[in-house]
């Protein structure tokens, strides 16, 4: 009798412990399932990111690449990449990268668009005034650059200049006038040393064919004085002459105004999207130079009206000078993207002209050699201008007509 009772007790205990054990085992399995699920999702996501980066690199190396990848084994899973052309005319593309890891799939969409130099608030090939120049042109504490910045040289800083945007340099290190503590720049954005972006050498010459086709070309004269009067362009070939008016939408439907082998004297108010090209047929730096005789601004100021569609590009083969004259003695307002293929943008007679206020630039400057705009004595301007360069954010999405391209693509958006 007692044996049966013991047997019943043992069986009872066993059943109870089995039930409890099954419960605990189930809980443990679910906990492990959670961990494995998260890990699997993360690996699939990482594979997709890798695929997107690999495809972006392939397009960087070969801009026409659109082969994609099909079910490539990668990191224990698989990756698929497709490249679709969204807009053939604008060259817009979308890269879709899928990472597959066991039962999890992660997808990333990357949108890219052709890149051009007008996207830069500031670009220089050399941070000096010419091939034989030995002095360093410093970015100083009174200088602020709003927007993307790149130099193919070192970044030379004195007294904490400010760079409010993505900042890159090809030569890598930052050069300090005294030391890092005294001179380090304030960068609100990214600093990426080592990026290589060379300036094109035929950008201005290539404009002539486009100017002949639905643009307007000035030719056969030494100098042309251009006054933008909203959608009218007034021009003359001598200072004493009267202006002749051109209705720009009819005269230059494609937005390109080209001065072949001339000197351009420029000022005015621009309405619409236009680019001014100025070439030189000789090695002399006199021609192919644009002189800013006064403000060159937009009819609708994008700082107050972000929906403004006015956009202007200045593309000079040689210099873009700020003229030393009365209107420019009390600051100058420049609303344009300025490109100088062989030389640079600067203030003429920078080291002798009086202190002239600010260069209030809204747009960008891209140049081969960096030209000075003033001189400093310690931390004080002694001649010329201080720089207040502000990036026109619209240039991230649009560019002046026929502006020189970088040959690559930019990432417009990243969805993951």
């Amino acid at each position, binding site marked *: 009798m007692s044996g049966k009772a013991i047997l019943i007790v043992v069986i009872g205990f066993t059943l109870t412990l089995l039930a409890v054990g099954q419960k605990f085992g189930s*809980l443990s399995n679910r906990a492990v399932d959670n961990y494995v699920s*998260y890990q699997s999702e993360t690996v699939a996501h990482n594979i997709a990111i890798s695929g997107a980066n690999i495809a972006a690199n392939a397009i960087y190396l070969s801009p026409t690449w659109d082969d994609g990848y099909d079910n490539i084994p990668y990191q224990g899973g698989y990756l698929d990449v497709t490249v679709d052309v969204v807009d053939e005319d604008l060259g817009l593309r979308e890269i879709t990268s899928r990472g597959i890891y066991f039962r999890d799939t992660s997808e990333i969409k990357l949108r890219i668009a052709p890149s051009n130099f007008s996207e830069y608030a500031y670009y220089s090939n050399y941070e000096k005034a010419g091939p034989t120049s030995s002095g360093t042109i410093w970015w100083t504490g009174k200088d602020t650059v709003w927007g993307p910045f790149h130099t193919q040289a070192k970044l030379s800083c004195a007294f904490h200049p400010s760079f409010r945007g993505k900042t890159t340099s090809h030569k890598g290190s930052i050069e300090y006038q005294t030391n890092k503590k005294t001179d380090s720049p304030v960068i609100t954005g*990214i600093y990426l040393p080592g990026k290589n972006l060379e300036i094109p050498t035929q950008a201005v010459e290539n404009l002539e064919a486009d100017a002949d086709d639905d643009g307007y070309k000035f030719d056969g004269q030494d100098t042309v004085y251009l006054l933008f009067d909203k959608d009218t362009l007034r021009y003359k070939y001598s200072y004493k002459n009267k202006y002749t008016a051109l209705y720009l939408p009819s005269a230059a439907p494609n937005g390109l105004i080209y001065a072949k082998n001339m000197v351009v004297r420029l000022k005015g108010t621009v309405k619409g999207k236009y680019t001014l090209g100025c070439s030189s047929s000789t090695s002399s730096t006199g021609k192919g130079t644009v002189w800013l005789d006064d403000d060159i601004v937009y009819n609708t100021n994008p700082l107050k009206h972000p929906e403004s569609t006015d956009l202007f590009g200045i593309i000079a083969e040689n210099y873009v000078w700020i003229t030393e004259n009365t209107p420019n003695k009390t600051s100058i307002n420049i609303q344009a993207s300025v490109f100088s293929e062989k030389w640079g943008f600067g203030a003429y007679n920078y080291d002798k002209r009086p202190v002239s206020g600010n260069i209030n630039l809204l747009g960008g400057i891209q140049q081969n050699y960096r030209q000075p705009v003033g001189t400093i004595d310690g931390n004080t301007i002694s001649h010329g201008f201080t720089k207040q360069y502000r990036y026109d954010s619209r240039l991230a999405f649009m560019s002046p007509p026929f502006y020189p391209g970088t040959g690559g693509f930019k990432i417009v958006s990243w969805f993951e």
Partner: protein
Amino acid sequence: MGFTTLLDIAGSMIIGGTLMMIVMRLSDASTEKTYNYSGELIVQQNLLTLAEMIEFDFRKIGFCNTWNAVVDPRTNQPFVSSQAIYYADGSSMSFYTDLYPYNGSLDSLRYYLGPTSECSSTPNPRDRILYRVENGNAAVASNLGVTDFRMVFYDVNDDTIPPPVVTRGLIKSIEINITVENVAAYDEKYSNAFWKQIRLASRNVSRSKTDN
């Protein structure tokens, strides 16, 4: 014979009592372990849900599904993705993104941690609610037992940025720390789980439009 019987009865009472105590103790331990294990599983699931939600949203900071310029509502200037985060402190962050259905219009999203007083009805004195607010609408949240939600912000040089951060464009990556506990526990023995994202960098924030 009577004494023997008494001994038998006493012995069986002792043995029976011991068995009863064993069974009751087994039941008690089983109940406690069940609650604790279940609680830990719930904590783990809650933490996983939070991590996935935060990663899903934070990876889209600065994203906008359009090729064209959109206007930043705070500056009335073209929106720049690298400046999507417009306020951040240790336990809250507000930023622009493009929420489902990703229609190319800027949306705002705000994450912030509520006070412990909002969860006074739960036995756990430390739990708080992590709120998610879309476009300034009413906050949506459920009590998942969050006891700690901390973010550390890094600039372009990987230096920490002291909170609060109101200068747009400074933050390039974020460290996220979340601790979750049971909202109720057996014998007040709370389980907790911790998740840390060492560096989360939204690719729309840590690049500018000129990346190529």
